[in-house]
């Protein structure tokens, strides 16, 4: 449903924000709800309730959104051209999984200027599993000329529950895609808008958050917050509200990542923490299904 004015206008540049706009347009045309980011700290676009919780139950659901994602251990003080502790994922969820899922995905690559006839696009086995979410699926990482540009997963289970129907989940690493279509070697050289670079927008944040994640975060306090979030999540489940409980579950998950970055979690404790978050995620999934009358 491209309008006449859009066709007449200059084609959009390959700036970071235009890639997002093009993906929004493409997936909106394909019938997706275009959502805004989840206002919680999460490690990946998958954690958004629009993917995790909405992939449960029988109702059809298609959504696309950008999700700012935080991985505290990946911080490099703004010095590594390929690594960030805060980055963007573009996330699409299609439920039930359409028979033409792969073609739809390839269409989205064309929409952002990657012509499959000029490149080597491959679907390489990569099964997805999230021990914290109690979730798994089968699929691929999609390679473009040897670079992983997306994760493509058919969700089988979330929160310990079978997905019925199965959804198609697509996750694009936006910075990588932008580096590729713009032909730059460093994340910081990405043209964010036509006038502003990624460095100008985010470099200071990378330096400061790296310092926070690795040096400054008060681990005793973070430990307390983890326990608080865990308790709150459980009591909200008791109160019968899945979505607010899920907020607390994700809060606990992020705090665990932060503790991990601060190096205060031993290998054996690590498993125990992951198990605690998984227990919360399962409870949220169960409550979500109950609230919608499916259990």
């Amino acid at each position, binding site marked *: 449903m491209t309008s006449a004015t859009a066709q007449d206008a200059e084609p959009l540049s390959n700036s970071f924000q235009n890639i997002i706009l093009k993906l929004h347009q493409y997936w909106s045309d394909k019938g997706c709800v275009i959502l805004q980011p989840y206002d919680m700290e999460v490690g990946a676009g998958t954690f958004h309730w629009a993917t995790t919780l909405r992939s449960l139950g029988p109702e059809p659901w298609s959504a696309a959104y950008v999700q700012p994602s935080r991985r505290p251990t990946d911080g490099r003080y703004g010095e590594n051209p390929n690594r960030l502790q805060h980055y963007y994922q573009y996330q699409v969820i299609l439920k039930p999984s359409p028979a033409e899922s792969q073609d739809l995905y390839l269409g989205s690559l064309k929409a952002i200027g990657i012509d499959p006839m000029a490149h080597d696009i491959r679907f390489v086995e990569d*099964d997805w599993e999230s021990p914290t979410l109690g979730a798994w699926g089968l699929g691929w990482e999609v390679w473009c000329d040897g670079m992983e540009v997306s994760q493509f997963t058919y969700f089988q289970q979330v929160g310990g529950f079978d997905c019925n129907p199965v959804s198609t989940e697509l996750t694009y690493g936006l910075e990588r895609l932008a580096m590729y279509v713009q032909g730059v070697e460093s994340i910081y050289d990405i043209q964010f808008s036509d006038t502003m670079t990624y460095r100008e927008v985010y470099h200071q944040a990378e330096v400061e958050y790296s310092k926070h994640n690795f040096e400054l975060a008060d681990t005793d306090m973070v430990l307390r917050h983890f326990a608080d979030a865990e308790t709150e999540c459980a009591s909200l489940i008791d109160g019968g509200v899945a979505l607010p409980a899920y907020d607390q579950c994700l809060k606990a998950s992020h705090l665990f990542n932060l503790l991990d970055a601060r190096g205060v979690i031993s*290998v054996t404790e690590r498993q125990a923490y992951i198990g605690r978050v998984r227990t919360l995620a399962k409870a949220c999934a169960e409550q979500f299904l109950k609230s919608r009358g499916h259990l």
Partner: protein
Amino acid sequence: MPELLLELFSEEIPARMQRRAAEDLKGLITDGLKKANLEFADARSYWTPRRLTLVVDGLPETQPDLHEERKGPKVGAPEQALAGFLKAAGLSSIDQCEQRETPKGAVWFAVTEKKGGPAADVLPGVIEAAIRALPWPKSMRFADQEFRWVRPFHSIIAVFAGTALSGSVDMRPGAVAFGVETKGHRFLGSGAAITVSGFDDYIAKLRDEKVILDPTERKASIDRQLREAADREGLTIKDDPGLLDEVTGLVEWPVALIGRIDDAFMEVPPEVLTASMRAHQKYFTLNRPDGSMAPRFAVIANMEAEDGGAAIISGNERVLRARLADAKFFWDQDRKTKLEDRLSDLEKVIFHAKLGTVAERVDRIAGLAEALAAHIPNADPALCARAARLAKADLTTEMVGEFPELQGLMGRYYALDQNEDAAVADAIAQHYSPAGPGDACPSEPTAIAVALAEKLDTLVGFWLIDEKPTGSKDPFALRRAALGVIRLVLENNVRIGLKDKALTHGIFFKLENASIDGEDLLRFFADRLRVHLKDEGVSHDLIQALFALGDEDDLVRLVARVHALRDFVNSEDGANLLTAYRRAANILKAEEKKDATEYNGAPDPEQFEQDEERNLWAALSSVAAQVGVMIEEEDFAGAMRLLASLRAPVDAFFDQVTVNADKPDLRRNRLMLLSRIRGTMGSLADFGLVEG
């Protein structure tokens, strides 16, 4: 004769599962054909990332008619028996049966002719059952379907004798109907469905659509293209059969392209570059004529791009730059910390909950390597201890964290970088070896000491906490460790006693009072040694015959004795003497049982009555006197030859002398003489355990 063509078309099947799935499909279909009495001439399976294909040649148009005979009750049997028989045979009247004369009288026989049905009616069921039964290591559901496949399943070609079979696979809900259509290459194909009438048509049309169906042909094409591309650059491809197989399963239309590695990365060790290119990118390494690594890589694309692959190469080069930038960062970063300064980090790494940290293990291995140096010719104890101390330090480096398969090797590079003795560096690199039958065995003194210490520490440690392999379960690879010890010791002539206190009493574990069952560990080695020597054609009973002596825990000496024993048993004198030994042993066993006593000890020469007794006694005494010295001097072949000299007097004794003489004293004395045969031979091996 008609042909069956079957293609199961799906989204990309993981490369590692394709071959097995195609073989399973063939197995399931051909089993189904056999059960349906459909004979065939040949069945071949093929695969690409998106399809499993099977072609069966030489099928009949119809099932053969079946002639069945069923034997029933006797003529004149009660009504009830006849009714039951008719029911079982599917007949309505006894008139449809015939009488036949048998030795037991006249008997009813039901003879039925079952008309074979058209194959086209039978095949759909066979195909559907095979698809439902095909096992996948991991399978998934799709949309609202209960049907499970490795990835979404899209279409089926099922053509028999040029026409589509009618049938479908139930997706619960929905179905995929059998058809005659498929698709070509995802990008290079026309995009339209292609219609096929048989295998030749199918394979030709797929080729037009840029799909090489036959994996053998694809692999050969990749191999040829790689060689040609390398040749154009004056380089050679480093052989990598595993990677070649993998990339064959990732493409339908392979195109080899060569890219450049930036010079800045060539200072990083070549193994690191190869590991990074192989694991993450599935690139092949190229070598210069002198064998050194060239700044090039080869990638197998699934695409024939209009620009000749320029954009694809440039994209791959960019990805590799980012990958190698990481590797170079690790290389630079790791070298800033000396290996010995990493040892404290090993205190945080648990080796096994009951066996402590890797740091503790390193302490033990260092002590053990130093002690072992005394038994290894030209080994310097200080160097052995130093190498052992640094051997595990690379486990804390970023590089080994990223590429675990480079453990040891990176330690060597970092050791050389900090100017360690070359022997120390090599020992670090080799101390995990030999890790399998195909792996080279260390042969330099320092490396031998550390490699041995590493494996002995593992074995003794797990024996101390009673974590031994059981059946097929060997989670700590103790069998491999034992085989490693055997090879290290045998190939380098290392003389150590496996029941040495230093090993069996947890001295190096700082557990003075804890000891393990040395005999039990020795039995474990004996089992592994049997496997090892089987390849040499040494049968297991010979090894058992020597282990039974109980005091032999030096594997080098043991194997020398095994070889001497084998040669002895294979010689004419030896085989004969073995027969005589058994005769002596059997007589003794029987008489000992009868008399409820044991005959052991010297006979009284005064009581000999025949020359054969005197001659045998003289020969036995002479052999006994010499054989001890020869064993001492490890002249086992000589000892065996000496033993063989007993054949004549022993044979003469049995020919001429009656052991069970009437006079009790004489009988007793002769049994004593026999016991000396057993005793003298028994000092070399337990001949009672030798078979054949």
